[in-house]
Structures are given as C-alpha cells and as structure tokens.
C-alpha cells in the first residue's frame, strides 16, 4: 500500500441553522483554509471528492453546485458520494493508491436545518414495508437503545455519562454547538422523547462543513511537519432490514476495525461517530475500546455537533489534527452511515 496521510483539516463551526449562508458560502472558507494549511494549491490537487446528500438540499445534483466552492476550472478530476464525507475520504485514499497523483481534496457539507431531519432520515429505510409507517430517526434509534439495554451490559446511567462527558469536552471545542453542562442526575429525571431516549441522548440539528487534504509519500512530508498517516482504513455494511440483524452489537464496526488493524495496540485518542449516546457504548464494545486507556471523543463528538454527511469526516479530521499538533501519536477514527449503525468505517492514523 502507498503511504497516504491527512496533512490538513478545517471545519466550519457547527450551528443550529446558518440562515445567512448557502452551502457554497459555508464551504468556501473551509476549503480555502484546508488548502492553505497544506500549502498545496487547488491547481496541484490531483483528485477532489465530496460527500453530501441531495435530500438535505431538496434538489438533485446539489453537489454539482457545491463545486463552486472549489472552482472547477480548468477542468478537474472530481467525484462525489451520496454519503458522509468519511466515505469520500475513503474513495480519495483508494484513488491515491493508483500512484499517478500525489494529493487529494476531500470535503463534506450539510444543512440539516432546511427540513425535518428526523423524518427525512426515514427515507433511508425500506421503501415498501417501513417508510409508509414513517418511523422517525429518533424512534428508530430508540429501538436500538432498548435492544442494547435489554442486553444488560449498559444502563441509561451509562448513556447519560456519555452525554455529560461529551458536553464537558464541548466546552473547549470552539466548533461545538451544544456546550451547556449536563447534570447527569437531573438529566435522568427528565421525561423521555421516545423511550428509552431522552433529549441528552440525541444529537442536535446542525449545519456545517469540513475539508481534509490528503497527500502521499514525500508530498505529505513537504505539506505537513507531522502528517497523520492512514495505517488502515476499511468499511463494512449490514443488512438494511432492522429486524434481520442484532441491533445491540455492531458486527460491521468490529469487522471494519479488524480489517483496518484497529484491534491491536493502544490509541491515544478515539473519535467515534455516535450521534446517539447508546451508539457510543455499542461502538466502544465493537471497537474493543472498552478497557483501553484512550481519550474518547475529546472534541465532544456528534452529540454536540452533528452536521449530517459531515460529522463522520470531522471525526477523521479531529483525530488527525491531534497527531498533526503533536498531542497524539496513534488515533482511531470512526464514521457511521444508515439507520442504527448500519454501515461503519474505521481509520487508524499514526505519526511517523
């Protein structure tokens, strides 16, 4: 495998609703910042790949318009995934393995504020037997939370502890959106939205964008004093039907972790994409992070900033940034897609 590294990362602060800027306007400074930090000009970038959803924008091919944030002239090599930007990064990493280019730009954007995100996410379910019943995203997540609690290994108190830690970490993250401290006992006394999920178990509605520059080999060393090398990356998916898999565990995350080489050795930091509190507990088990001395989601994670289609790429960026800054030597990043952790991507990042 060719050595490929994250050499720069930038993100827009996550906000409840950016009513003054469209997606291009949110993206432009983010793309410029990521390229600027890498010192690689847009004309040198060998491949550009983005992640977003037309359903958020409410119009087909909305990603084409987002290219204005890059400036697609002269003609450039570009691709898009209708997925979280973490999967765009995977495509760019695979493209760099071809060996004929040395750098790639990855970006993601999403304005969840423009619609009812909980109902919009219903549309990713089975169109024949499930969507006509309109189970919203919180309801579907609650089915998984109940399955996990029934397993007996985790409690609602554990879930509240995840939320409280995420809020504490959010206080020192200027890009986080939900930064009010959480009193666990008081939070557990609150009524459920959809039992067993309370408000603190659910992610905020967020608008945001992020960009990462990847570079290979020597080009990475020129672009960054301490590149975050991608030592392993893999993604796996489970059946679409919620009733055909075990919701209390994450087989696909465990499989991706194994193939990415994430099940051995210690991590200084793990950035896990868990929009709901119970999902972090399920993922910690699947990724084997339960007993390891790893800083969990020091950014606060998706519970404090959840721009849909972006939050997974931010996990890779936050993990890589800690290596680039010298705060970590080895980091694990994870992204998820689909209902109830249907699809999972695991990325192992290391300093030299």
């Amino acid at each position, binding site marked *: 495998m060719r050595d490929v590294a994250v050499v720069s990362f930038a993100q827009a602060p996550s906000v409840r609703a950016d009513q003054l800027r469209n997606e291009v306007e949110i993206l432009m400074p983010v793309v410029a910042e990521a390229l600027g930090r890498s010192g690689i000009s847009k004309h040198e970038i060998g491949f550009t790949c983005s992640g977003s959803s037309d359903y958020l924008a409410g119009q087909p091919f909305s990603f084409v318009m987002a290219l204005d944030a890059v400036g697609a002239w002269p003609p450039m090599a570009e691709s898009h995934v209708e997925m979280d930007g973490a999967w765009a990064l995977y495509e760019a990493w695979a493209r760099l393995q071809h060996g004929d280019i040395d750098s790639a730009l990855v970006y993601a954007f999403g304005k969840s504020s423009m619609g009812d995100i909980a*109902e919009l996410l219903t549309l990713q379910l*089975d169109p*024949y*037997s*499930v969507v*006509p*019943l*309109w*189970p*919203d995203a919180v*309801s*579907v997540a*609650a*089915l*998984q*939370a*109940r*399955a996990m609690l*029934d397993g007996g290994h985790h409690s609602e108190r554990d879930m509240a502890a995840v939320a409280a830690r995420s809020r504490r970490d959010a206080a020192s993250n200027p890009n986080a959106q939900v930064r009010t401290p959480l009193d666990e006992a008081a939070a557990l006394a609150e*009524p*459920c*939205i*959809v*039992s*067993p*999920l309370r408000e603190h178990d659910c992610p905020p509605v967020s608008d945001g964008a992020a960009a990462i520059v990847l570079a290979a080999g020597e080009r990475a060393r020129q672009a960054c004093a301490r590149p975050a090398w991608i030592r392993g990356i893999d993604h796996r998916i489970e*059946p*679409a*039907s*919620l*009733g*055909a*898999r075990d*919701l209390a565990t994450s087989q696909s995350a465990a499989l991706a972790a194994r193939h990415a080489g994430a099940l051995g050795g210690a991590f200084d930091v793990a950035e896990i994409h868990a929009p709901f509190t119970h999902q972090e507990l399920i993922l910690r088990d699947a990724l084997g992070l339960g007993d390891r001395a790893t800083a969990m989601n020091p950014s606060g994670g998706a519970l404090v900033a959840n721009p849909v289609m972006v939050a997974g790429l931010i996990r890779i960026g936050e993990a890589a940034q800690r290596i680039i800054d010298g705060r970590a030597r080895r980091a694990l990043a994870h992204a998820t897609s689909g209902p109830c952790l249907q699809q999972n991507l695991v990325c192992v990042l290391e300093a030299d």
Partner: protein
Amino acid sequence: MTTADADPRQATPLTAPHMLEYEYTRSVGPVIGRFFGALQERRVVGVRTAGGRGLVPPQEYDPESGEPVGDFVDVASAGVVTTWAWVHAPRPKHPLQRPFAWALVQLDGADTAMLHAVDAGDESRMSTGMRVRIRWSAETHGDIHDIACFEPEDAR
C-alpha cells in the same frame, strides 16, 4: 389575426403546465408483491433462504449470502416483540395518533422481525419478549397499512 396578436407587447404569453413528479410506476416484484398480496387476504408470508432462515417481510436476496431466496412460507399473525420504543407524542405521519410503541415483531415461524406499531395503551404494558398479534385494517389494499398495528395478545 388580430391587431393585438400582431403587436408583441400585446401578445398573450404562451404557458404550459409543469408538474414536478416521477412519471413512472414501479412494480414491487414477485417476492415483495407476494407478501403484500397475502396481506390483502389477511395472511402473512415470508421466504426461506437456502440456509433455512425465514425472512419476514420477505426479501429477494438472502442478506447473509446474497443468494436468491427459495420457497414462500406461511407464518403466523402473532409473535414476539424483540425490541420496542415508546412514542409519547406521535408525529402527524405516525400510524397511531395516541401514545404507542414501535416494535420489532418476530412472527411465529419467522427468523427475522418486522417493524410496526403496537397499540398497547400504556408504556407499562410493553416489554421485550411480550406476545402481540396483528390487528388487521377494516379494508385491505395490498400494502403495509393492511396491518393497522399490533396489539398485546392478552388484550380483549
């Protein structure tokens, strides 16, 4: 030709209707179609995979192996709740407009569970492992709404 038509400033603009829609219908196919056809007759059918797993609702391909599925199998209209979630404030699109449970229900004879609503009246009546049965709609049309919801089997 009238004078008004001759003068472009007086001309009536041409108009044409434009409706944003997908101009096609889609068949649900031989497998899911069979499932909905049975629902219309107030029966539930699934499929058996090569490995012997009963999938309800049926799918055209085995999610484990990707192989085409085999024979159709009749399953019961009652089964067990494998997980559930209580909705305190239903949304306008939800199938019931009073507090209800979402549940994954594994029907007797099936190896997978289907998602639907349970009209249990109160959250305290819900538990994982409880038995529920289908409440059929008064009229059936060959879609998922032929099942109005599930209800606890011990309900009158």
